[in-house]
């Protein structure tokens, strides 16, 4: 269909975006790669020469490496399950006839507008503080000993905070998808005597497949890099050190840029492994 000239025009129009992103990816990537093969200690005089794969070996053999990979996966996985699960339920609820739908929708999407630093600070101090936090007050009111959220249930706490931030996003996308669902289809299923649960399983859920894929993809991209939530709350203590946070510790706390860069390369590899899975999934869904 497209003519030769429109093809080259198309390429030309894509060029700025592609070149910019290529630069944004390649320049730091190449520098990171260079650093990762060097002993680079800014506090000891900077560039101290090539060391081959030493940084790579050291990063992987450190006792903190595998726990950090699993912490990353648990946080990403946990948040995805919660936001998609609750997101579907919320979307269905919000799609029902009710009074004040607009206001409820505003209430539900609000957490998305709160900057991560603020939400982490608020949750940590005003809710999860074991002495002055609201949760502690509630627990004490019911005669229970307050939970030390950020130490005893550190992972759950972080997942809770991050899920609160991302639930609105998931809900919104799923809501738009549900609204596009053919009411007749549902009514037909109802006529056929399908129970509500069946209707949900056979009609609603398959229809949402594509939306869920999109939610998973976009959120994973953001969740792999979460930093502020951990920096503000636990600083990586109590098993919450993700790969991103481990790299931060190497680069900024230990000021070992070589080692941190090697970690960065691992993080890129991990991200790409996850990306390949996701892309397959999305790719299929995009084709239809």
């Amino acid at each position, binding site marked *: 269909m*497209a003519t030769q000239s429109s093809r080259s025009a198309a390429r030309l129009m*894509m060029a700025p975006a592609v070149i910019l992103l290529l630069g*944004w990816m390649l320049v730091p990537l190449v520098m*990171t790669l260079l650093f990762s093969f060097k002993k680079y200690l800014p506090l000891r005089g900077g560039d101290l020469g090539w060391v081959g794969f030493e940084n790579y070996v050291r990063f992987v053999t450190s006792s903190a490496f595998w726990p950090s990979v699993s912490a990353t996966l648990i946080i990403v996985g946990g948040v995805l399950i919660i936001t998609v699960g609750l997101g579907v339920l919320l979307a269905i609820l919000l799609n029902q006839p*009710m009074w004040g739908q607009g206001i409820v929708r505003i209430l539900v999407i609000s957490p998305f507008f709160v900057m991560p630093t603020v939400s982490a600070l608020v949750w940590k101090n*005003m809710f999860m503080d074991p002495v002055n936090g609201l949760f502690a007050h509630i627990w004490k009111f019911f005669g229970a000993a307050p939970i030390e959220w950020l130490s005893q249930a550190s992972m759950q706490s972080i997942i809770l905070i991050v899920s609160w931030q991302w639930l609105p996003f998931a809900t919104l996308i799923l809501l738009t998808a549900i609204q596009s669902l053919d009411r007749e289809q549902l009514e037909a299923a109802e006529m056929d005597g399908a129970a509500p649960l069946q209707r949900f399983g056979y009609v609603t859920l398959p229809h949402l497949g594509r939306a869920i894929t999109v939610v998973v993809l*976009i959120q994973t991209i953001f969740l792999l890099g979460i930093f502020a939530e951990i920096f503000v709350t636990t600083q990586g203590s109590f098993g919450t050190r993700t790969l991103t946070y481990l790299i931060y510790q190497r*680069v900024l706390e230990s000021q070992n840029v070589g080692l941190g860069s090697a970690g*960065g390369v691992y993080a890129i590899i991990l991200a790409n492994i996850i990306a390949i899975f996701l892309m397959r999934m999305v790719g299929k869904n*995009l084709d239809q």
Partner: protein
Amino acid sequence: MARAVTSRRKIINTAAAWTVGLLIFFPILWTILTSFKTEATAIADPPVFIGFDWTLENYATVLERSDYARFLWNSIIIAGGSTILGILVAVPAAWSMAFVPSKRTKDILLWMLSTKMLPAVGVLYPIYLIFIKLGLLDSRTGLVIVLMLMNLPIIVWMLYTYFREIPGEILEAARMDGASLKEEILYVLTPMAVPGIASTLLLNFILAWNEAFWTLNLTAAKAAPLTAFIASYSSPEGLFYAKLSAASTMAIVPILILGWFSQKQLVSGLTFGAVK
């Protein structure tokens, strides 16, 4: 009979939805309430909800200590600038992907998204060194560029999905009428895509507003936005919940209000191609 059932269902729905909505909104509400308390009331046990002596002293303290207007202005410029610049770069790219797709279009799109997966901490050092060389440290220009690049993949993706929903026949018709490429984009495509572009603008404005890694690490005084403002109110000495709440409220209220007013546009457009 049927009416009675529906209205009862409506009552149940309403009750359930409002409960959930208020629960989700509660942390924000609590922060705003706390910002009007004294430090002592803020940690009172049992907690007080409404029945306290409302005070503005926290806001006065925060305004006296920080140049709020400058932080706010920087946030607006950085978030706005990066979003607008991003859209300018992304519209042509998304257009060509949507209307002149090639075999590689999808690969390029997915590759773009994958650039977002580079861990920011890992490349802080290289970027910092580059910024020193270019003299971009603590400049709004530098942040506008970085945040634009960060959000570009999302912008391209969103626009691409909107453009794809526009029926090709309309463009064909325009072309038959002798419209040039520029006219086609400007007068046919863009108006049709306005809801999508609006939604993209809003989402990316929010993302840029809330970005807290680069905005904190690449600025000092001149270009520091609200994310840096808030970094001076976390756990100083002594009681700080009320002051922290006031500062938090000041940091999130502008974007909250924007979000509330524009929620229709945001919601209607936020599909990422999830709806066929």
